[in-house]
């Protein structure tokens, strides 16, 4: 089974100003998308609905949290922080596939029913994102089980592999960084 779990204690790691930054960036990105739409039209404005402004803040905060946690343990946490941010980026790449599914479902449904478009789009995002994450996870576990395939993996993929938690890699970052 997948080890997906809800860990509300993680929220206590955040500082109050980090939540203010996220609120501010989210609000600014939404206002900016509206401004671009009204000035340059819906086609250009629509691009900015997928602007990675929030991701910049999230990845930086993840790196900061991991670095801080390692430093509190008396270690240099820069490397760990960078790896945790890279893992977040890998997840965001899969989430982008879901975002594409949201846009397709929304555009197909919005002119027939607005509530259905929001519900269908959100459901499409959830199903496609989770399925992409699950398939990637399974594929990496299978790949690790085959030494030849493992050997031909690129340096970057190998680094990300080491971050993933899996039964063949008990010392992985993800398992330790919970």
């Amino acid at each position, binding site marked *: 089974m997948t080890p997906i779990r809800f860990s509300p204690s993680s929220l206590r790691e955040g500082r109050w100003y980090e939540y203010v930054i996220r609120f501010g960036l989210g609000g600014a990105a939404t206002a900016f998308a509206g401004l671009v739409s009204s000035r*340059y039209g819906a086609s250009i404005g629509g*691009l900015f609905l997928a602007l990675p402004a929030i991701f910049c803040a999230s990845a930086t905060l993840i790196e900061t949290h991991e670095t801080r946690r390692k430093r509190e343990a008396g270690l240099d946490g820069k490397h760990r922080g960078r790896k945790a941010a890279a893992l977040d980026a890998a997840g965001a790449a899969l989430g982008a596939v879901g975002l594409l599914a949201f846009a397709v479902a929304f555009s197909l449904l919005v002119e027939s029913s607005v509530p259905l478009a929001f519900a269908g789009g959100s459901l499409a995002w959830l199903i496609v994102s989770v399925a992409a994450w699950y398939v990637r996870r399974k594929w990496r576990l299978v790949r690790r089980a085959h030494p030849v395939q493992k050997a031909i993996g690129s340096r970057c993929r190998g680094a990300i592999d080491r971050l993933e938690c899996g039964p063949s890699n008990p010392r992985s970052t993800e398992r330790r960084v919970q």
Partner: protein
Amino acid sequence: MTEYVVRFLIGGAVVSAFAMLGDALRPKSFAGLFGAVPSVALATLGIAIYQHGAGYAALQSHSMMAGAIALGVYSVVVCHLLVRARLRALSATLLSIVVWLIVSVGPLFLAGGRT
């Protein structure tokens, strides 16, 4: 002006809610999915429908597809910059914005995008 204040407040609230949900989920690669949650889209498309109607929102969602593809490319580039070039997260994410702009806006301009 009021319109943009409302956009700011709604966008900030929706983005914060999804960001907190992502923070509380494990493992990290799964939580990363929430880096591409359509939070800005949900807020903006809702306001677009209220102000301009469903046709306008449909047009926005069409070009959002290009933005989503660009976000996927952007995320992969960020990942490589962090692992290979060993950049800090802030530098990697900000530098890669150029990639997002080229992949999303570039084809639209080349095709003489209809606005």
